[in-house]
């Protein structure tokens, strides 16, 4: 993977995000145009870097690595929609139920 270094930004920065085909896990494109499940490793691409990133993303779509690719524009306000906050948190905002595993055994 090519390491992308961004020079002067001519457009608003863009995050690339998708889901992993095999399990639906939310992914973010990192600086080396690999995919990471860690939101903190996501890089906002601009200009030439964005073109390379998009090309790599298209290739990853074609190679069955990712699905549901889309871009999030970073407008500098620091605000993210509730949807993106929840996706970045990798889980719901409420505690899901906990299974008391030792209370029974399935018959299957």
């Amino acid at each position: 993977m090519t390491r992308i270094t961004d020079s002067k930004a001519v457009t608003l920065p863009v995050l690339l995000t998708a889901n992993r085909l095999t399990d639906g896990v939310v992914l973010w494109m990192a600086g080396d145009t690999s995919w990471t499940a860690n939101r903190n490793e996501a890089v906002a691409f601009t200009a030439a870097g964005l073109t390379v990133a998009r090309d790599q993303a298209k290739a990853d779509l074609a190679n069955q690595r990712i699905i549901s690719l889309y871009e999030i524009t970073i407008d500098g306000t620091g605000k993210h929609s509730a949807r993106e906050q929840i996706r970045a948190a990798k889980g719901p905002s409420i505690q899901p139920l906990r299974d008391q595993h030792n209370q029974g055994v399935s018959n299957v």
Partner: protein
Amino acid sequence: MYKYDNLDQSFLQSRSAQFRDQVQRRLSGALSEDEFKPLRLQNGLYLQLHAYMLRVAIPYGVLSSDQLRGLAGIARDFDRGFGHFTTRQNIQFNWIKLVEAPDILDRLAALDMHAIQTSGNCIRNTTTDPLAGAAHDEIANPLGWCEIIRQWSTLHPEFAFLPRKFKIAVSAGATDRAATGFHDIGLRMVKNRGGEIGFRVLVGGGQGRTPRAAQVLNAFLPTRHLLSYLEAILRVYNAAGRRDNIYKARIKILVEAMGISAFADAVNSEWLGLQSNGLDLPVAEQDRILAHFAPPVLKPVRDGSAEVLARRQADQAFDLWAASNIHPHWHPGYSSASVSLKQIGRPPGDASASEMIAIADLADQFGRGELRITYTQNIIVPHIKLIDLPTFYDGLIKAGLAGAEDALIGDIIACPGLDYCNLANARSLPVADRIFARFDDPSRRHEIGPLRLNISGCINACAHHHAADIGVLGVNKKGVEHFQITLGGKAGEAAQIGRILGPSFAEEDVPDAIETIINIYLGARHEGEIFAACLDRLGIAPFKEALYGTG
């Protein structure tokens, strides 16, 4: 219950094998995502916010205890140890991996279960009264007719690609507990003057961004003509329903555009040609299927009323539970009991694997090993002897499932919302929790009395907020989650769409708003007057005034 035969089981196994092949071809790239998506949707597999979601069919909400244990096993082995019961009496698993989905379908097939037609533009799961076959007020048991519809609609070659999804509900009780007035087709079992049982056929109901109450299409359809008549309705819809706009594609839009008279004429014209086509079941086949749902032979039992009364007098918690969660049965010595899946910290309708197993065990011990998933996202155990209710309740306490919520303000119906769903605008689950916490006192909930409160995370209205006494709709207001409140929805006999009260509220303000509404009701109600009746009497003006001061 309907028992799968070799033909049914063979079909499920081959369907599962077919899907395994489709998944392998997707993973290899032989199928593109555009090619694969309709195939996975036909097997109930969605891509949601965090993972794939699998919607498993529970035909007309009926499960055996073994099937519920099997679902618990799937929750443990393939998900995160829990499942979500839906307003269409199905179950959803939220953390599925595509690579494991074929294994899950195999596991389901071994349970005589599947995920076929739980998504896509096809006829979905037929839903019904969760008390069917046990209710005290039924004209007939609708379950057999639901099974007939299921067999007719599964893989129907003509209706695999309808303009949009299609939902049918059947009720047979004096009270409509299946919300038939809000379905594409609602079938109410009725008797004509001659005492013959048939269907009152309703058409064009629905929720979503254009909610509509269904209209009467046929006041009395003899039962023997059910399939040919349904076929006629679907043919008219399939031919004339809009395909140019996904938001205008449901049958409710077509019925409104044509007018009910013209629509009825079109259906009757289509039906004339179908009645002699052999679509209607031969009586022997009809009776063969209905025989699977014959009334259970219930052992004679002494009247347990005294035991129940004694426990109610001695135990306030049991008294509250009995007041809300026990349902009368056609046999005087028996009852059906609701297991509430609603409490603080629990997403409405969610059950852990261990809870599913505990409920299955209780159904075996006290019922007949049969369970019902309700439209309100709870579970009913039918056919419990009255005399066993106190011990059954003790079993619920042990399982942490003794909530006394049924049909009260704590019995919130909520969709998964933005916490899980790709379509949602707002989170429904934290709002549900806030409201439940505000009304945390069980005595207060009982004092308020019967009240349906539903929360939808978006206009698709999967939680049927339009049909609720108090509806809450999540909206996106300049990127911030807000919640609009409606009043006066009715899901029963006279379906009615709730009216928007006014501007939306921030999440933290919703409990105050709900409490204001409740306080207006409590202050104005006549003795014994439930919320819905009080609202009918007062209108929404006093509630609007209290919330917005608009007069």
